[in-house]
Protein backbone atom coordinates (compact mmCIF):
# COMPACT_ATOMS: atom_id res chain seq x y z
CA UNK A 1 0.00 0.00 0.00
CA UNK A 2 1.19 3.47 -0.90
CA UNK A 3 1.00 6.05 1.82
CA UNK A 4 -1.49 8.83 1.39
CA UNK A 5 -0.06 12.06 0.04
CA UNK A 6 0.08 14.73 2.79
CA UNK A 7 -1.91 17.15 0.61
CA UNK A 8 -4.70 14.62 0.14
CA UNK A 9 -4.85 14.17 3.91
CA UNK A 10 -5.07 17.91 4.55
CA UNK A 11 -7.49 18.29 1.66
CA UNK A 12 -9.86 15.62 2.90
CA UNK A 13 -9.75 17.07 6.43
CA UNK A 14 -10.67 20.50 5.01
CA UNK A 15 -13.51 19.07 2.92
CA UNK A 16 -14.85 17.02 5.80
CA UNK A 17 -14.67 20.03 8.13
CA UNK A 18 -16.49 22.14 5.56
CA UNK A 19 -19.21 19.50 5.14
CA UNK A 20 -19.73 19.36 8.90
CA UNK A 21 -19.89 23.12 9.32
CA UNK A 22 -21.68 23.99 6.08
CA UNK A 23 -25.18 24.44 7.59
CA UNK A 24 -23.73 27.03 9.99
CA UNK A 25 -22.05 29.17 7.35
CA UNK A 26 -24.22 28.76 4.25
CA UNK A 27 -27.66 30.30 3.61
CA UNK A 28 -30.58 27.86 3.43
CA UNK A 29 -30.73 27.96 -0.37
CA UNK A 30 -27.13 26.76 -0.58
CA UNK A 31 -27.80 23.98 1.93
CA UNK A 32 -30.47 22.68 -0.44
CA UNK A 33 -27.88 22.63 -3.21
CA UNK A 34 -25.38 20.84 -0.97
CA UNK A 35 -27.93 18.13 -0.18
CA UNK A 36 -28.61 17.70 -3.86
CA UNK A 37 -24.88 17.46 -4.58
CA UNK A 38 -24.48 14.76 -1.93
CA UNK A 39 -27.37 12.65 -3.20
CA UNK A 40 -26.22 12.96 -6.80
CA UNK A 41 -22.67 12.17 -5.70
CA UNK A 42 -23.84 8.87 -4.20
CA UNK A 43 -25.78 8.13 -7.35
CA UNK A 44 -22.82 8.95 -9.62
CA UNK A 45 -20.51 6.85 -7.44
CA UNK A 46 -22.90 3.90 -7.68
CA UNK A 47 -23.02 4.35 -11.44
CA UNK A 48 -19.26 4.52 -11.65
CA UNK A 49 -18.85 1.35 -9.62
CA UNK A 50 -20.47 -0.30 -12.62
CA UNK A 51 -19.06 1.92 -15.38
CA UNK A 52 -15.58 2.91 -14.27
CA UNK A 53 -14.71 -0.02 -12.03
CA UNK A 54 -16.74 -2.71 -13.78
CA UNK A 55 -16.31 -1.43 -17.35
CA UNK A 56 -20.04 -1.82 -18.00
CA UNK A 57 -21.89 1.15 -19.47
CA UNK A 58 -25.56 0.93 -18.58
CA UNK A 59 -27.83 3.44 -20.26
CA UNK A 60 -30.70 2.40 -18.12
CA UNK A 61 -29.18 3.39 -14.83
CA UNK A 62 -32.20 5.54 -14.18
CA UNK A 63 -34.02 2.26 -13.54
CA UNK A 64 -32.69 1.42 -10.06
CA UNK A 65 -32.70 5.11 -9.13
CA UNK A 66 -36.34 5.44 -10.17
CA UNK A 67 -37.30 2.19 -8.47
CA UNK A 68 -35.69 3.49 -5.28
CA UNK A 69 -37.45 6.83 -5.61
CA UNK A 70 -40.88 5.30 -6.17
CA UNK A 71 -40.36 2.66 -3.48
CA UNK A 72 -39.43 5.33 -0.95
CA UNK A 73 -42.35 7.55 -1.97
CA UNK A 74 -44.88 4.72 -1.74
CA UNK A 75 -43.48 3.54 1.60
CA UNK A 76 -43.57 7.07 3.01
CA UNK A 77 -47.14 7.46 1.81
CA UNK A 78 -48.70 4.13 2.72
CA UNK A 79 -46.48 2.82 5.54
CA UNK A 80 -45.58 5.97 7.39
CA UNK A 81 -45.16 3.93 10.60
CA UNK A 82 -42.00 2.18 9.42
CA UNK A 83 -38.84 3.80 10.87
CA UNK A 84 -36.99 5.94 8.34
CA UNK A 85 -33.79 3.91 8.43
CA UNK A 86 -35.72 0.69 7.86
CA UNK A 87 -37.58 2.28 4.93
CA UNK A 88 -34.29 3.21 3.28
CA UNK A 89 -33.05 -0.31 3.98
CA UNK A 90 -36.09 -1.75 2.21
CA UNK A 91 -35.54 0.67 -0.67
CA UNK A 92 -31.93 -0.48 -1.00
CA UNK A 93 -33.00 -4.13 -0.86
CA UNK A 94 -35.54 -3.52 -3.60
CA UNK A 95 -32.82 -1.86 -5.67
CA UNK A 96 -30.66 -4.93 -5.17
CA UNK A 97 -33.48 -7.24 -6.32
CA UNK A 98 -34.11 -4.99 -9.35
CA UNK A 99 -30.43 -5.31 -10.12
CA UNK A 100 -30.56 -9.10 -9.94
CA UNK A 101 -33.59 -9.29 -12.22
CA UNK A 102 -32.35 -6.82 -14.86
CA UNK A 103 -28.75 -7.95 -14.50
CA UNK A 104 -29.46 -11.64 -14.93
CA UNK A 105 -30.94 -10.87 -18.34
CA UNK A 106 -28.39 -8.32 -19.47
CA UNK A 107 -24.87 -8.82 -18.06
CA UNK A 108 -24.11 -11.57 -20.57
CA UNK A 109 -23.85 -8.84 -23.19
CA UNK A 110 -21.20 -6.17 -23.56
CA UNK A 111 -20.62 -2.71 -25.01
CA UNK A 112 -23.43 -1.03 -26.93
CA UNK A 113 -25.62 -4.11 -26.55
CA UNK A 114 -25.50 -4.10 -22.78
CA UNK A 115 -26.08 -0.34 -22.75
CA UNK A 116 -29.17 -0.67 -24.93
CA UNK A 117 -30.73 -3.53 -23.10
CA UNK A 118 -30.53 -1.92 -19.69
CA UNK A 119 -32.08 1.12 -21.31
CA UNK A 120 -34.95 -1.02 -22.59
CA UNK A 121 -35.64 -2.19 -19.06
CA UNK A 122 -35.65 1.35 -17.81
CA UNK A 123 -38.18 2.32 -20.46
CA UNK A 124 -40.30 -0.66 -19.44
CA UNK A 125 -40.35 0.63 -15.86
CA UNK A 126 -40.89 4.17 -17.12
CA UNK A 127 -43.94 3.01 -19.08
CA UNK A 128 -45.35 1.40 -15.94
CA UNK A 129 -44.71 4.53 -13.86
CA UNK A 130 -46.33 6.66 -16.55
CA UNK A 131 -49.41 4.52 -17.10
CA UNK A 132 -50.19 3.03 -13.69
CA UNK A 133 -51.90 6.25 -12.74
CA UNK A 134 -53.82 5.03 -9.71
CA UNK A 135 -50.56 4.23 -7.90
CA UNK A 136 -47.93 6.54 -9.36
CA UNK A 137 -50.05 9.50 -10.54
CA UNK A 138 -48.07 9.29 -13.80
CA UNK A 139 -46.61 12.53 -15.13
CA UNK A 140 -48.27 14.59 -12.42
CA UNK A 141 -46.50 12.78 -9.62
CA UNK A 142 -47.43 13.06 -5.98
CA UNK A 143 -45.98 14.62 -2.83
CA UNK A 144 -45.04 12.80 0.32
CA UNK A 145 -44.29 14.02 3.81
CA UNK A 146 -40.79 13.59 5.09
CA UNK A 147 -40.97 11.27 8.09
CA UNK A 148 -39.12 11.94 11.34
CA UNK A 149 -36.01 9.99 12.20
CA UNK A 150 -36.36 7.82 15.27
CA UNK A 151 -33.23 6.17 16.56
CA UNK A 152 -33.16 3.67 19.40
CA UNK A 153 -31.60 5.20 22.54
CA UNK A 154 -31.20 8.61 20.90
CA UNK A 155 -34.87 9.50 20.52
CA UNK A 156 -36.77 11.24 17.72
CA UNK A 157 -35.47 13.90 15.37
CA UNK A 158 -37.86 16.01 13.37
CA UNK A 159 -36.92 16.29 9.70
CA UNK A 160 -39.11 19.30 8.98
CA UNK A 161 -36.11 21.62 8.93
CA UNK A 162 -33.41 21.53 6.26
CA UNK A 163 -30.45 21.27 8.66
CA UNK A 164 -31.29 17.84 10.14
CA UNK A 165 -32.05 16.64 6.61
CA UNK A 166 -28.57 17.83 5.65
CA UNK A 167 -26.85 15.92 8.44
CA UNK A 168 -28.92 12.78 7.92
CA UNK A 169 -28.15 12.81 4.17
CA UNK A 170 -24.48 13.50 4.87
CA UNK A 171 -24.31 10.51 7.24
CA UNK A 172 -26.02 8.08 4.85
CA UNK A 173 -24.16 9.28 1.77
CA UNK A 174 -20.76 9.30 3.50
CA UNK A 175 -21.33 5.76 4.82
CA UNK A 176 -22.50 4.47 1.45
CA UNK A 177 -19.65 6.09 -0.48
CA UNK A 178 -17.06 4.81 2.01
CA UNK A 179 -18.60 1.35 1.81
CA UNK A 180 -18.33 1.51 -1.99
CA UNK A 181 -14.70 2.56 -1.74
CA UNK A 182 -13.80 -0.36 0.50
CA UNK A 183 -15.96 -2.74 -1.54
CA UNK A 184 -13.72 -1.98 -4.52
CA UNK A 185 -10.67 -2.95 -2.44
CA UNK A 186 -12.00 -6.37 -1.43
CA UNK A 187 -10.96 -9.50 -3.33
CA UNK A 188 -14.39 -9.42 -4.96
CA UNK A 189 -13.83 -5.80 -5.95
CA UNK A 190 -10.47 -6.75 -7.46
CA UNK A 191 -12.03 -9.57 -9.43
CA UNK A 192 -14.49 -7.04 -10.87
CA UNK A 193 -11.56 -4.98 -12.16
CA UNK A 194 -9.98 -8.18 -13.46
CA UNK A 195 -13.07 -9.05 -15.49
CA UNK A 196 -13.21 -5.47 -16.80
CA UNK A 197 -9.70 -5.72 -18.19
CA UNK A 198 -10.02 -9.19 -19.63
CA UNK A 199 -13.06 -11.43 -19.60
CA UNK A 200 -11.54 -14.35 -21.51
CA UNK A 201 -8.83 -15.34 -19.11
CA UNK A 202 -10.64 -15.24 -15.74
CA UNK A 203 -12.83 -18.29 -16.48
CA UNK A 204 -9.66 -20.35 -16.96
CA UNK A 205 -8.50 -19.16 -13.55
CA UNK A 206 -11.73 -20.33 -11.99
CA UNK A 207 -13.64 -17.03 -11.89
CA UNK A 208 -17.31 -16.96 -12.78
CA UNK A 209 -17.51 -13.88 -15.04
CA UNK A 210 -21.30 -13.91 -15.18
CA UNK A 211 -21.65 -14.02 -11.41
CA UNK A 212 -19.04 -11.30 -10.90
CA UNK A 213 -20.78 -9.00 -13.40
CA UNK A 214 -24.16 -9.74 -11.86
CA UNK A 215 -22.78 -8.91 -8.41
CA UNK A 216 -21.33 -5.55 -9.40
CA UNK A 217 -24.52 -4.71 -11.29
CA UNK A 218 -26.75 -5.57 -8.34
CA UNK A 219 -24.59 -3.74 -5.80
CA UNK A 220 -24.59 -0.63 -8.02
CA UNK A 221 -28.35 -0.87 -8.28
CA UNK A 222 -28.64 -1.14 -4.51
CA UNK A 223 -26.67 2.09 -4.06
CA UNK A 224 -28.54 3.85 -6.86
CA UNK A 225 -31.88 2.92 -5.30
CA UNK A 226 -30.65 4.31 -2.00
CA UNK A 227 -29.77 7.57 -3.78
CA UNK A 228 -33.23 7.62 -5.38
CA UNK A 229 -34.87 7.03 -2.00
CA UNK A 230 -32.83 9.80 -0.43
CA UNK A 231 -33.80 12.14 -3.25
CA UNK A 232 -37.50 11.59 -2.58
CA UNK A 233 -36.86 11.95 1.15
CA UNK A 234 -35.24 15.32 0.48
CA UNK A 235 -37.50 16.49 -2.34
CA UNK A 236 -40.80 15.23 -0.85
CA UNK A 237 -42.09 14.68 -4.36
CA UNK A 238 -41.92 11.96 -6.98
CA UNK A 239 -42.96 11.86 -10.64
CA UNK A 240 -41.87 10.10 -13.82
CA UNK A 241 -39.01 12.63 -13.97
CA UNK A 242 -37.05 10.26 -11.68
CA UNK A 243 -37.09 7.44 -14.23
CA UNK A 244 -37.26 9.05 -17.68
CA UNK A 245 -34.53 9.18 -20.30
CA UNK A 246 -32.95 12.40 -19.01
CA UNK A 247 -32.20 10.79 -15.67
CA UNK A 248 -29.84 8.26 -17.24
CA UNK A 249 -28.24 11.02 -19.24
CA UNK A 250 -27.62 13.07 -16.11
CA UNK A 251 -25.82 10.32 -14.21
CA UNK A 252 -23.71 9.51 -17.26
CA UNK A 253 -22.87 13.18 -17.64
CA UNK A 254 -21.80 13.48 -14.00
CA UNK A 255 -19.51 10.46 -14.22
CA UNK A 256 -17.99 11.54 -17.55
CA UNK A 257 -17.49 15.19 -16.63
CA UNK A 258 -15.92 14.29 -13.33
CA UNK A 259 -13.84 11.48 -14.77
CA UNK A 260 -14.73 7.82 -14.56
CA UNK A 261 -11.18 6.56 -14.08
CA UNK A 262 -10.88 7.91 -10.58
CA UNK A 263 -13.04 7.08 -7.58
CA UNK A 264 -13.48 10.77 -6.73
CA UNK A 265 -14.30 11.76 -10.34
CA UNK A 266 -18.08 11.20 -10.17
CA UNK A 267 -18.30 13.11 -6.89
CA UNK A 268 -16.57 16.08 -8.50
CA UNK A 269 -18.83 15.62 -11.53
CA UNK A 270 -21.96 15.65 -9.35
CA UNK A 271 -20.88 18.87 -7.66
CA UNK A 272 -20.03 20.44 -11.02
CA UNK A 273 -23.33 19.35 -12.55
CA UNK A 274 -25.57 20.58 -9.74
CA UNK A 275 -23.78 23.89 -9.28
CA UNK A 276 -23.35 24.69 -12.98
CA UNK A 277 -26.91 23.69 -13.78
CA UNK A 278 -28.16 25.87 -10.97
CA UNK A 279 -26.06 28.77 -12.18
CA UNK A 280 -26.91 28.33 -15.88
CA UNK A 281 -30.62 27.83 -15.40
CA UNK A 282 -30.70 31.27 -13.76
CA UNK A 283 -29.16 32.66 -16.96
CA UNK A 284 -30.75 30.66 -19.77
CA UNK A 285 -33.49 28.14 -20.34
CA UNK A 286 -31.42 26.46 -23.05
CA UNK A 287 -29.74 24.29 -20.46
CA UNK A 288 -29.98 21.14 -22.60
CA UNK A 289 -28.00 22.79 -25.38
CA UNK A 290 -25.19 23.58 -22.96
CA UNK A 291 -25.39 20.10 -21.44
CA UNK A 292 -25.07 18.47 -24.85
CA UNK A 293 -22.14 20.71 -25.73
CA UNK A 294 -20.36 19.93 -22.46
CA UNK A 295 -20.84 16.25 -23.21
CA UNK A 296 -19.25 16.54 -26.65
CA UNK A 297 -16.34 18.68 -25.49
CA UNK A 298 -15.52 16.32 -22.62
CA UNK A 299 -15.71 13.25 -24.85
CA UNK A 300 -13.49 14.78 -27.52
CA UNK A 301 -11.02 16.87 -25.56
CA UNK A 302 -11.04 15.95 -21.88
CA UNK A 303 -11.01 12.19 -21.77
CA UNK A 304 -10.05 11.87 -18.13
CA UNK A 305 -12.74 14.31 -17.01
CA UNK A 306 -12.29 17.23 -14.62
CA UNK A 307 -10.47 15.09 -12.06
CA UNK A 308 -7.60 14.61 -14.52
CA UNK A 309 -6.89 18.32 -14.20
CA UNK A 310 -6.06 17.79 -10.52
CA UNK A 311 -4.87 14.24 -10.34
CA UNK A 312 -2.72 13.02 -13.22
CA UNK A 313 -3.94 9.87 -14.85
CA UNK A 314 -2.52 6.62 -13.55
CA UNK A 315 -0.12 4.93 -15.96
CA UNK A 316 -1.29 1.42 -15.20
CA UNK A 317 -3.49 -0.29 -17.77
CA UNK A 318 -6.39 -0.11 -15.36
CA UNK A 319 -6.75 3.52 -16.35
CA UNK A 320 -8.66 2.70 -19.51
CA UNK A 321 -11.90 1.86 -17.76
CA UNK A 322 -14.92 1.40 -19.92
CA UNK A 323 -13.21 2.39 -23.11
CA UNK A 324 -13.48 -1.01 -24.78
Amino acid at each position, binding site marked *: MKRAHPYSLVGSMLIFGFLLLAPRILPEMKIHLMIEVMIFALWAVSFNLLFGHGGL*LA*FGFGAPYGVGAYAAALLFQHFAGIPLVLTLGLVALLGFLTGIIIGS*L*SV*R*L*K*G*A*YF*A*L*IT*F*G*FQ*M*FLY*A*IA*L*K*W*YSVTKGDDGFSVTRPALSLPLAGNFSMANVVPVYYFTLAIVALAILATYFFQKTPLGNSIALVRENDIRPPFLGYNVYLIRLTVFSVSCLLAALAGGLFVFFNEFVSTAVID*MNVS*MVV*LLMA*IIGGSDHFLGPILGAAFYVLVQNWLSSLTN*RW*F*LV*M*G*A*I*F*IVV*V*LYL*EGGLISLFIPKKDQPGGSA*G*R*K
Partner: protein
Amino acid sequence: MGVWEIYLTTAMHGLVYGMLIFLVASGLTLVLGMAGVLNIAHAALYMLGAYFAYTFTQFTGSFWLSLILSPLVVALVAVLIERFLLRKTYAKGHVPQILLTFGLLYMISEIVRMVWGTNPLRVFEPPLLSGEIPFLGGTYPVYRLFIIGFSIFILIGMLLFLMRTRVGLIIRAAVHDADMVGALGTNVPVYLFAVYAGGAILAAVAGVIAAPMLSIFSGMGDQILLDCFVVIIVGGFGSLLGAFVAALLVGELQSYGVLWIPQLALVFEFLLMAVVLAIRPTGLFGEEI
Protein backbone atom coordinates in the same frame (compact mmCIF):
# COMPACT_ATOMS: atom_id res chain seq x y z
CA MET B 1 -68.21 -1.53 -39.22
CA GLY B 2 -67.81 -5.14 -38.13
CA VAL B 3 -65.22 -6.52 -35.77
CA TRP B 4 -63.08 -7.86 -38.60
CA GLU B 5 -62.91 -4.50 -40.32
CA ILE B 6 -61.69 -2.92 -37.08
CA TYR B 7 -59.03 -5.60 -36.70
CA LEU B 8 -57.99 -5.14 -40.30
CA THR B 9 -57.78 -1.36 -40.02
CA THR B 10 -55.76 -1.76 -36.83
CA ALA B 11 -53.42 -4.15 -38.60
CA MET B 12 -52.98 -1.60 -41.40
CA HIS B 13 -52.19 1.17 -38.90
CA GLY B 14 -49.62 -1.13 -37.32
CA LEU B 15 -48.10 -1.85 -40.71
CA VAL B 16 -47.80 1.88 -41.45
CA TYR B 17 -46.01 2.65 -38.21
CA GLY B 18 -43.91 -0.50 -38.45
CA MET B 19 -42.65 0.52 -41.89
CA LEU B 20 -41.71 3.97 -40.56
CA ILE B 21 -39.77 2.43 -37.69
CA PHE B 22 -38.07 0.10 -40.12
CA LEU B 23 -36.91 2.97 -42.34
CA VAL B 24 -35.27 4.65 -39.34
CA ALA B 25 -33.96 1.49 -37.71
CA SER B 26 -32.39 0.06 -40.89
CA GLY B 27 -29.63 2.68 -41.03
CA LEU B 28 -29.08 2.42 -37.30
CA THR B 29 -28.70 -1.35 -37.31
CA LEU B 30 -26.42 -1.43 -40.39
CA VAL B 31 -24.02 1.12 -38.89
CA LEU B 32 -24.15 -0.76 -35.59
CA GLY B 33 -23.33 -4.00 -37.39
CA MET B 34 -20.52 -2.53 -39.50
CA ALA B 35 -18.73 -0.27 -37.08
CA GLY B 36 -20.23 -1.15 -33.71
CA VAL B 37 -21.33 2.49 -33.51
CA LEU B 38 -24.64 2.98 -31.78
CA ASN B 39 -25.55 6.32 -33.30
CA ILE B 40 -28.14 7.72 -30.93
CA ALA B 41 -28.30 10.96 -32.89
CA HIS B 42 -29.85 8.93 -35.71
CA ALA B 43 -33.29 9.56 -34.24
CA ALA B 44 -32.60 13.29 -34.39
CA LEU B 45 -32.14 12.94 -38.16
CA TYR B 46 -35.68 11.56 -38.44
CA MET B 47 -36.93 14.56 -36.49
CA LEU B 48 -34.87 16.98 -38.61
CA GLY B 49 -36.34 15.36 -41.74
CA ALA B 50 -39.84 16.19 -40.56
CA TYR B 51 -38.98 19.76 -39.53
CA PHE B 52 -37.17 20.50 -42.80
CA ALA B 53 -40.17 19.08 -44.63
CA TYR B 54 -42.31 21.64 -42.83
CA THR B 55 -40.02 24.51 -43.81
CA PHE B 56 -39.60 23.40 -47.43
CA THR B 57 -43.34 22.87 -47.84
CA GLN B 58 -43.86 26.38 -46.47
CA PHE B 59 -41.43 27.87 -48.97
CA THR B 60 -42.03 25.80 -52.08
CA GLY B 61 -45.61 24.78 -51.46
CA SER B 62 -44.80 21.33 -52.72
CA PHE B 63 -44.73 18.21 -50.57
CA TRP B 64 -42.96 16.27 -53.32
CA LEU B 65 -40.15 18.79 -53.58
CA SER B 66 -39.58 18.65 -49.83
CA LEU B 67 -39.58 14.85 -50.00
CA ILE B 68 -36.45 15.23 -52.16
CA LEU B 69 -34.87 18.32 -50.61
CA SER B 70 -35.28 17.51 -46.92
CA PRO B 71 -33.45 14.14 -46.99
CA LEU B 72 -30.60 15.73 -48.93
CA VAL B 73 -30.17 18.51 -46.38
CA VAL B 74 -30.39 16.03 -43.51
CA ALA B 75 -27.81 13.81 -45.21
CA LEU B 76 -25.52 16.84 -45.44
CA VAL B 77 -25.96 17.48 -41.70
CA ALA B 78 -25.28 13.80 -40.96
CA VAL B 79 -22.18 13.75 -43.14
CA LEU B 80 -20.81 16.86 -41.42
CA ILE B 81 -21.44 15.26 -38.02
CA GLU B 82 -19.65 12.10 -39.11
CA ARG B 83 -16.72 13.93 -40.66
CA PHE B 84 -16.02 16.42 -37.89
CA LEU B 85 -17.23 14.73 -34.70
CA LEU B 86 -18.00 11.04 -34.90
CA ARG B 87 -14.90 10.10 -36.90
CA LYS B 88 -12.65 11.35 -34.11
CA THR B 89 -14.09 8.75 -31.77
CA TYR B 90 -13.71 5.63 -33.93
CA ALA B 91 -10.31 4.88 -32.43
CA LYS B 92 -11.58 5.41 -28.90
CA GLY B 93 -14.14 2.61 -28.79
CA HIS B 94 -17.82 2.19 -28.01
CA VAL B 95 -18.41 4.33 -25.00
CA PRO B 96 -17.22 7.73 -26.29
CA GLN B 97 -19.32 7.24 -29.46
CA ILE B 98 -22.46 6.57 -27.47
CA LEU B 99 -21.77 9.57 -25.26
CA LEU B 100 -21.00 11.87 -28.17
CA THR B 101 -24.13 10.94 -30.12
CA PHE B 102 -26.22 11.21 -26.96
CA GLY B 103 -24.92 14.75 -26.51
CA LEU B 104 -25.69 15.47 -30.16
CA LEU B 105 -29.28 14.24 -29.78
CA TYR B 106 -29.76 16.69 -26.92
CA MET B 107 -28.20 19.57 -28.81
CA ILE B 108 -30.20 18.94 -31.99
CA SER B 109 -33.46 18.62 -30.03
CA GLU B 110 -32.77 21.91 -28.29
CA ILE B 111 -31.77 23.66 -31.53
CA VAL B 112 -34.99 22.39 -33.12
CA ARG B 113 -36.94 23.91 -30.23
CA MET B 114 -35.06 27.18 -30.71
CA VAL B 115 -35.62 27.36 -34.46
CA TRP B 116 -39.12 25.94 -34.88
CA GLY B 117 -40.57 26.57 -31.42
CA THR B 118 -42.25 24.12 -29.09
CA ASN B 119 -45.72 24.05 -30.64
CA PRO B 120 -46.58 21.00 -32.75
CA LEU B 121 -46.45 21.76 -36.48
CA ARG B 122 -48.43 20.28 -39.30
CA VAL B 123 -47.56 19.42 -42.89
CA PHE B 124 -50.53 18.67 -45.13
CA GLU B 125 -50.49 15.72 -47.46
CA PRO B 126 -50.48 16.54 -51.19
CA PRO B 127 -53.97 16.84 -52.73
CA LEU B 128 -53.31 13.73 -54.78
CA LEU B 129 -53.09 11.63 -51.61
CA SER B 130 -55.73 13.21 -49.40
CA GLY B 131 -59.06 11.68 -48.59
CA GLU B 132 -60.10 8.09 -48.12
CA ILE B 133 -60.81 5.29 -50.53
CA PRO B 134 -62.96 2.18 -50.17
CA PHE B 135 -60.81 -0.59 -48.84
CA LEU B 136 -61.91 -4.14 -48.09
CA GLY B 137 -65.42 -3.21 -47.12
CA GLY B 138 -64.51 -0.06 -45.18
CA THR B 139 -62.55 3.03 -46.09
CA TYR B 140 -58.89 3.80 -45.48
CA PRO B 141 -56.88 7.03 -45.78
CA VAL B 142 -55.05 7.20 -49.10
CA TYR B 143 -52.04 8.76 -47.48
CA ARG B 144 -51.44 5.78 -45.21
CA LEU B 145 -51.66 3.46 -48.17
CA PHE B 146 -49.08 5.68 -49.84
CA ILE B 147 -46.75 5.29 -46.84
CA ILE B 148 -47.04 1.52 -47.04
CA GLY B 149 -46.48 1.47 -50.80
CA PHE B 150 -43.61 3.92 -50.70
CA SER B 151 -41.84 2.07 -47.87
CA ILE B 152 -42.22 -1.25 -49.67
CA PHE B 153 -40.76 0.42 -52.75
CA ILE B 154 -37.75 1.60 -50.71
CA LEU B 155 -37.45 -1.80 -49.07
CA ILE B 156 -37.30 -3.57 -52.44
CA GLY B 157 -34.75 -1.04 -53.67
CA MET B 158 -32.66 -1.64 -50.57
CA LEU B 159 -32.85 -5.40 -50.95
CA LEU B 160 -31.84 -5.24 -54.61
CA PHE B 161 -28.95 -2.94 -53.73
CA LEU B 162 -27.70 -5.07 -50.86
CA MET B 163 -28.26 -8.46 -52.50
CA ARG B 164 -27.51 -7.81 -56.15
CA THR B 165 -24.68 -5.25 -56.31
CA ARG B 166 -21.02 -5.51 -55.50
CA VAL B 167 -21.22 -2.61 -53.04
CA GLY B 168 -24.11 -4.34 -51.27
CA LEU B 169 -22.06 -7.51 -51.04
CA ILE B 170 -19.18 -5.64 -49.40
CA ILE B 171 -21.57 -3.93 -46.96
CA ARG B 172 -23.09 -7.26 -45.94
CA ALA B 173 -19.64 -8.76 -45.53
CA ALA B 174 -18.55 -5.79 -43.43
CA VAL B 175 -21.57 -6.17 -41.16
CA HIS B 176 -20.50 -9.76 -40.65
CA ASP B 177 -16.82 -9.04 -40.00
CA ALA B 178 -15.48 -5.55 -40.74
CA ASP B 179 -11.91 -6.36 -39.71
CA MET B 180 -11.64 -9.26 -42.13
CA VAL B 181 -13.11 -7.26 -45.02
CA GLY B 182 -10.60 -4.52 -44.27
CA ALA B 183 -7.75 -7.02 -44.16
CA LEU B 184 -8.75 -8.25 -47.63
CA GLY B 185 -8.00 -4.81 -49.02
CA THR B 186 -11.36 -3.04 -48.94
CA ASN B 187 -11.49 0.51 -47.66
CA VAL B 188 -14.20 -0.17 -45.07
CA PRO B 189 -14.41 3.43 -43.73
CA VAL B 190 -15.52 4.64 -47.19
CA TYR B 191 -18.34 2.10 -47.27
CA LEU B 192 -19.24 2.91 -43.69
CA PHE B 193 -19.45 6.57 -44.65
CA ALA B 194 -21.79 5.67 -47.52
CA VAL B 195 -23.98 3.51 -45.30
CA TYR B 196 -24.06 6.30 -42.75
CA ALA B 197 -25.21 8.83 -45.34
CA GLY B 198 -27.71 6.34 -46.79
CA GLY B 199 -29.11 5.62 -43.35
CA ALA B 200 -29.47 9.36 -42.73
CA ILE B 201 -31.43 9.74 -46.00
CA LEU B 202 -33.75 6.87 -45.05
CA ALA B 203 -34.33 8.30 -41.57
CA ALA B 204 -35.11 11.71 -43.06
CA VAL B 205 -37.45 10.19 -45.67
CA ALA B 206 -39.28 8.46 -42.82
CA GLY B 207 -39.51 11.81 -41.06
CA VAL B 208 -40.90 13.54 -44.15
CA ILE B 209 -43.56 10.94 -44.92
CA ALA B 210 -44.50 10.67 -41.24
CA ALA B 211 -44.98 14.45 -41.02
CA PRO B 212 -48.50 14.68 -42.52
CA MET B 213 -49.72 11.66 -40.56
CA LEU B 214 -48.26 12.36 -37.10
CA SER B 215 -47.79 15.94 -36.06
CA ILE B 216 -44.26 17.36 -35.90
CA PHE B 217 -43.07 17.96 -32.36
CA SER B 218 -39.70 18.18 -30.65
CA GLY B 219 -40.16 14.89 -28.80
CA MET B 220 -40.76 12.84 -31.94
CA GLY B 221 -37.10 11.85 -32.10
CA ASP B 222 -37.12 10.40 -28.59
CA GLN B 223 -40.26 8.43 -29.37
CA ILE B 224 -38.89 6.76 -32.48
CA LEU B 225 -35.54 6.24 -30.75
CA LEU B 226 -37.18 4.03 -28.14
CA ASP B 227 -38.99 2.04 -30.81
CA CYS B 228 -35.76 1.68 -32.79
CA PHE B 229 -33.91 0.46 -29.71
CA VAL B 230 -36.53 -2.20 -29.14
CA VAL B 231 -36.46 -3.11 -32.83
CA ILE B 232 -32.71 -3.60 -33.04
CA ILE B 233 -32.63 -5.52 -29.77
CA VAL B 234 -35.52 -7.79 -30.77
CA GLY B 235 -34.35 -8.18 -34.36
CA GLY B 236 -30.69 -8.71 -33.54
CA PHE B 237 -27.86 -6.23 -33.94
CA GLY B 238 -26.88 -5.60 -37.53
CA SER B 239 -29.61 -7.79 -38.98
CA LEU B 240 -31.74 -6.06 -41.61
CA LEU B 241 -34.21 -8.93 -41.80
CA GLY B 242 -34.44 -8.91 -38.02
CA ALA B 243 -35.07 -5.17 -38.04
CA PHE B 244 -37.86 -5.62 -40.59
CA VAL B 245 -39.62 -8.40 -38.67
CA ALA B 246 -39.19 -6.63 -35.34
CA ALA B 247 -40.38 -3.28 -36.73
CA LEU B 248 -43.59 -4.88 -37.98
CA LEU B 249 -44.03 -6.67 -34.65
CA VAL B 250 -43.57 -3.44 -32.71
CA GLY B 251 -45.89 -1.55 -35.06
CA GLU B 252 -48.65 -4.13 -34.72
CA LEU B 253 -48.11 -4.47 -31.00
CA GLN B 254 -48.56 -0.72 -30.54
CA SER B 255 -51.55 -0.62 -32.82
CA TYR B 256 -53.38 -3.53 -31.18
CA GLY B 257 -52.17 -2.41 -27.76
CA VAL B 258 -53.95 0.90 -28.23
CA LEU B 259 -57.06 -0.97 -29.42
CA TRP B 260 -57.22 -3.46 -26.58
CA ILE B 261 -55.49 -2.10 -23.50
CA PRO B 262 -54.56 1.55 -24.11
CA GLN B 263 -52.90 1.97 -20.71
CA LEU B 264 -50.43 -0.81 -21.39
CA ALA B 265 -49.67 -0.15 -25.07
CA LEU B 266 -46.26 1.24 -24.16
CA VAL B 267 -45.50 -1.66 -21.84
CA PHE B 268 -46.17 -4.34 -24.46
CA GLU B 269 -43.19 -3.60 -26.66
CA PHE B 270 -40.77 -3.63 -23.78
CA LEU B 271 -42.35 -6.84 -22.57
CA LEU B 272 -41.70 -8.28 -26.04
CA MET B 273 -38.10 -7.17 -25.70
CA ALA B 274 -37.70 -8.80 -22.29
CA VAL B 275 -39.24 -12.05 -23.52
CA VAL B 276 -37.01 -12.19 -26.61
CA LEU B 277 -33.94 -11.42 -24.50
CA ALA B 278 -34.76 -14.12 -21.99
CA ILE B 279 -35.18 -16.73 -24.73
CA ARG B 280 -32.63 -15.50 -27.30
CA PRO B 281 -30.22 -12.90 -25.89
CA THR B 282 -28.86 -12.13 -29.39
CA GLY B 283 -32.27 -11.20 -30.80
CA LEU B 284 -34.42 -13.09 -33.28
CA PHE B 285 -31.96 -12.93 -36.18
CA GLY B 286 -28.75 -11.82 -34.49
CA GLU B 287 -25.43 -13.58 -34.70
CA GLU B 288 -23.76 -14.96 -31.61
CA ILE B 289 -21.73 -12.28 -29.87
